[in-house]
């Protein structure tokens, strides 16, 4: 199309996140919700046609219901927020009983995010959920503190991260995503270990640990003292980590997360090497954010004459 503007009228937006897995994890578009920001998928159904999303990732599920932390649990920060919810969730049983049947009817894959405080916790939940119809894949939130290593989160040490990944892999029939923490010196080392241990895909990043002091009371603002920083503030850090991992581990399916507010942000992650993105905090600002990101990516492809979104994955590397 020499000199002219090329238009791809029906660009392909589908992406495959678990090519090595027998059942695969195929999304109709590269936009997922991020765990903890879209509930169990049902809450936003009035405002959003969830079936237009690439996938839904649920709030973390632990073996038993959990109460979480006392308040305040969130606080706004410049272009971001801290949260310290503390893994409040309905627990495995209620998840399987109350939500999985709904997910099963939806024409959108539902990925269940898993919380655990021991390798056994993760295995228990993964095993049960991978036998539950309606659960398309699981995502391990390994940023939880590991009771067996004095509370050091699994995600901060390559050995712990690999150990829990391998243990879950043994019992997990569905595709396995492992979610990486940004609070590390070398994210590539952790990514490589987790991938070698059997993860189908890696999602990154979880929140950065942050703290706000309430200068009036002279105490930490959050009930939990520290919290996780999310939102547009962290996007440059997240894109950098995706870029580093994509460079070091070509071909490994990556899911970018951290501050995606609009299609341009999502495209940054994709060009840095992510096959898909998760939209988190943005949903609080605009409940339709994930849908609008998906629409915006499609519009970009059409405008720029890109036939398939996969052509853009890692182009900036």
């Amino acid at each position, binding site marked *: 199309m020499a000199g002219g503007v090329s238009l791809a009228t029906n660009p392909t937006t589908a992406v495959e996140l678990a090519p090595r897995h027998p059942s695969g994890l195929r999304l109709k578009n590269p936009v997922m919700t991020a765990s903890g920001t879209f*509930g169990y998928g049902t809450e936003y159904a009035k*405002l959003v046609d969830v079936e237009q999303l690439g996938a839904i990732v649920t709030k973390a599920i632990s073996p038993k219901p959990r109460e979480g932390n006392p308040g305040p*649990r969130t606080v706004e920060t410049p272009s971001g927020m801290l949260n310290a919810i503390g893994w409040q969730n309905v627990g495995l049983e209620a998840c399987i009983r109350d939500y999985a049947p709904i997910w099963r009817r939806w024409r959108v894959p539902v990925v269940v995010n898993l919380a655990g405080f021991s390798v056994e916790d993760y295995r228990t939940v993964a095993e049960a959920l991978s036998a539950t119809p309606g659960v398309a894949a699981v995502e391990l939130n390994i940023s939880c503190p590991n009771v067996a290593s004095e509370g050091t989160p699994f995600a901060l040490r390559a050995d712990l991260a690999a150990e829990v990944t391998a243990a879950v892999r043994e019992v997990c029939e569905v595709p396995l995503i492992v979610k990486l923490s940004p609070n590390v010196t070398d994210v590539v080392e952790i990514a490589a270990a987790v991938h070698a241990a059997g993860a189908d895909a890696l999602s990154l990043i979880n929140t950065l640990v942050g703290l706000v002091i309430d200068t009036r009371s002279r105490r930490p603002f959050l009930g939990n003292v520290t919290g996780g920083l999310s939102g547009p503030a962290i996007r440059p850090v997240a894109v950098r980590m995706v870029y580093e991992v994509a460079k070091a581990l070509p071909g490994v399916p990556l899911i970018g997360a951290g501050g995606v507010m609009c299609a341009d942000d999502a495209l940054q992650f994709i060009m840095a090497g992510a096959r898909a993105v998760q939209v988190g905090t943005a949903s609080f600002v605009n409940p339709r954010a994930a849908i609008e990101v998906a629409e915006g990516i499609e519009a970009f492809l059409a405008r720029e004459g890109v036939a398939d979104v996969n052509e853009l994955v890692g182009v900036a590397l």
Partner: protein
Amino acid sequence: MRLFEGLVLANERAGEGLLMMRVRAPEAAREARAGQFLHVRCARPDGYDPLLRRPISIYRAADDELWLYFDVVGRGTAFLASLREGDRLDCLGPLGQPFRIPPNARNLLMVGGGIGLAPLAALADEALARELNVTILAGFRSGARALPGGFVPPAAEYVVATEDGAIGHAGYVTDLVPSYLGWADAVFACGPTRMLESLRRATAGTTKPVQVSLEERMGCAMGVCLSCVLHTDRGLKRVCRDGPVFDLAELQELQWRAA
């Protein structure tokens, strides 16, 4: 509940540091029930700071309009104060569980502290339209902070208490509750946590329904982020979705804070 852009019809000073905003929003106005709130974006669409929406009660819903009454306390509400006629307000709502007037109640006692009176004004409108009797006890820190008379519907009895004694009863508004409790068939309240704590003491032992509207910091206001939970007899509940209106009797705490 919907996501919509309301058209600002007016936004005017209405008391010390307070503003009243009239927003055109026909569908939302029809849906709105007293006690519900809007979650409003307090930044230009292309700016991410401040990032989060702010919850603001529906002060009045009339015809095609929603009215908001707000106190400028920080940068979100300062942004709201900067809006002018013709601007757009990005809103999510109406959200939350409204006040529920018990079927046989005839005499409604409403107890409000400061800007907490806003949702009670909407409730008074609803009650008066059903020809119920309404008494509003209104508490303010000082005379200067007291809301102007026209703030609540004129057909409601309006009794003021100020902590500095400048207007009405000198002291806390909850001091007045005992003398009205016998008359009332149901009590409705909204205000600072400290006021609601006093109200709990003032109504201890009563079998009459007492409904309170609570405040907690919110992320989503859609029930997903779990920013806003507290313990009730029915387990952990979310202020944004299970509330903000709760039966006082079922609340184990007014806010969940570490001991």
